């Protein structure tokens, strides 16, 4: 479906894009993603998957990190650019259950967490967000997160903002003092998700993680994006991208 870029705000290598895409906005759930193609041409050949960062009022937002050609084209797109989207795709995070949520986002992995925080807050579920990055510039959506009513804790590896160190350190501190059961949702680099999974197991918290794989179809037909889940291959695009952390075979 065609979508028009309404605004594009830049933060260093990141861009926060808002598209007009009413049908998509209506159906989107936190944790789902969209496959975007910049109209015309064969380079890049595939669409590119991006998590829905916020959706509503006929609009869908994304937080894009400019990496290769595809994400660069998108991050640099000017308002009024038309792109072609397929989505929403995949399964989102669990919304059911009243337990307080700890949302963990590394880099652009914070994108789906904003959408999730909003919907959890709308159900009056307490939300605490742990945002991590290499430096202050990688800490995204802080303001938007606070506006949802979530408590926000920031970490940077270089100490330029918030806690100095990994995002999993304040998370562990929080888990240590947890009185009641909490539920974790995480999205970010592989190593971070692995660490979150370890913590969740150790502190007996339920955890969901959003995984990434290169995607040829995004529709569940090519079997190109599989990960080992409980010893069996599952498709990130159709069976995920959100999986129970404990089910993921991190060594496969």
């Amino acid at each position, binding site marked *: 479906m065609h979508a028009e870029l309404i605004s594009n705000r830049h933060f260093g290598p990141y861009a926060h894009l808002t598209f007009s895409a009413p049908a998509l906005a209506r159906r989107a759930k936190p944790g789902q993603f969209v496959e975007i193609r910049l109209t015309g041409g064969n380079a890049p*050949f595939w669409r590119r998957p991006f998590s829905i960062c916020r959706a509503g009022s006929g609009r869908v937002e994304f937080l894009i990190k400019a990496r290769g050609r595809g994400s660069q084209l998108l991050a640099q797109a000017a308002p009024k650019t038309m792109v072609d989207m397929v989505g929403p795709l995949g399964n989102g995070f669990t919304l059911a259950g009243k337990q307080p949520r700890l949302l963990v986002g590394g880099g652009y992995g914070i994108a789906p967490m904003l959408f999730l925080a909003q919907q959890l807050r709308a159900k009056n579920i307490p939300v605490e967000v742990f945002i991590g990055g290499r430096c202050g510039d990688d800490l995204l959506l802080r303001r938007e997160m606070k506006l949802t009513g979530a408590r926000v804790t920031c970490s940077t590896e270089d100490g330029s903002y918030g806690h100095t160190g990994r995002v999993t350190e304040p998370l562990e501190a929080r888990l240590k003092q947890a009185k009641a059961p909490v539920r974790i949702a995480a999205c970010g680099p592989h190593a971070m998700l692995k660490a979150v999974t370890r913590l969740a197991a150790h502190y007996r918290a339920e955890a969901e993680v959003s995984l990434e794989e290169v995607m040829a179809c995004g529709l569940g037909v090519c079997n*190109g994006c599989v990960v080992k889940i409980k010893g069996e291959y599952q498709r990130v695009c*159709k069976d995920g991208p959100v999986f129970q952390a404990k089910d993921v075979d991190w060594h496969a």
Partner: protein
Amino acid sequence: MRKSNSALQVNVGGVKLANPVILASGTCGYGTELEGWLDFNTIGGLVAKSITLSPRTGNAMPRVVECASGMLNAIGLANVGVEAFCREKLPALRKCPCAVLANVAGSRAEEYIHVIQRLEKQPGIAGLELNVSCPNVHAGGIEFGRDPKVLAKLVSAARRVTRRPLWIKLSPNVTDIVPLAKAAEAAGADALTVANTLVGMRMDLARHRPVLANLTGGLSGPAIKPVALALVYKVAGAVKIPVVGCGGIETAGDALEFILAGATAVQIGTGTFRDPGIPGRVAAGLRTYLAHRRLHSILDLVGAGRV
């Protein structure tokens, strides 16, 4: 809703299609995955993902990589196996408003035969396509696709156990495709699909090793269109049974190139990944082309570009 328009109807070796656009095996799963993204009323048929006797988990990851105007895949025929196919996948496939073909792969002739026999009593399968050309696994039957004698044996054996229309999907990775096409025809094939993917590779510059765990993969997409088209032209000139063109088709113009070269129908694979609206648009574009040229049947164009 199925648009009835006899101008696009074709009969491909006994498989009746409302229009000549077919989804290629391995690129439309078992149909259901694409529901909501693709209207099966707009296409002529689909070929389900290759099935083998036993379930296969497929190759290690990574299995796919982008290339210029195309992609490599080395999925490794991941599939649920013929039992689960009949039990779990066929019921939904039967509800599909377009023709459904099953695609069979194996590493030994007996494997193919067992799968065909298991399918024979199942209703709702319009035809069989034998994959003798998967470049990615030993079990893909690539040997059958390289030697005319071996291929003839397999096709004869298959012919004996099925009354269904029997299509053979040939490999483009051969010195001369004609002896293979003729061998399949002589052994009883009803149609030939031309072609599967080209063997290709990409190197990972960061890891200093091939990107794909399987080292090589099959190249598909617009990059291979000229190669597939030349093969269709060659095969259509050498056999009397219908030819189904396949390789890099994304537009009605692409499909027409294959039809003019002699294809009675076309398959679309990677195009569906790039945009699930492509198959429907190709069919609609063919309809428009016929109307503009005031042609009554797409059959008037089949082979019309041959000299």
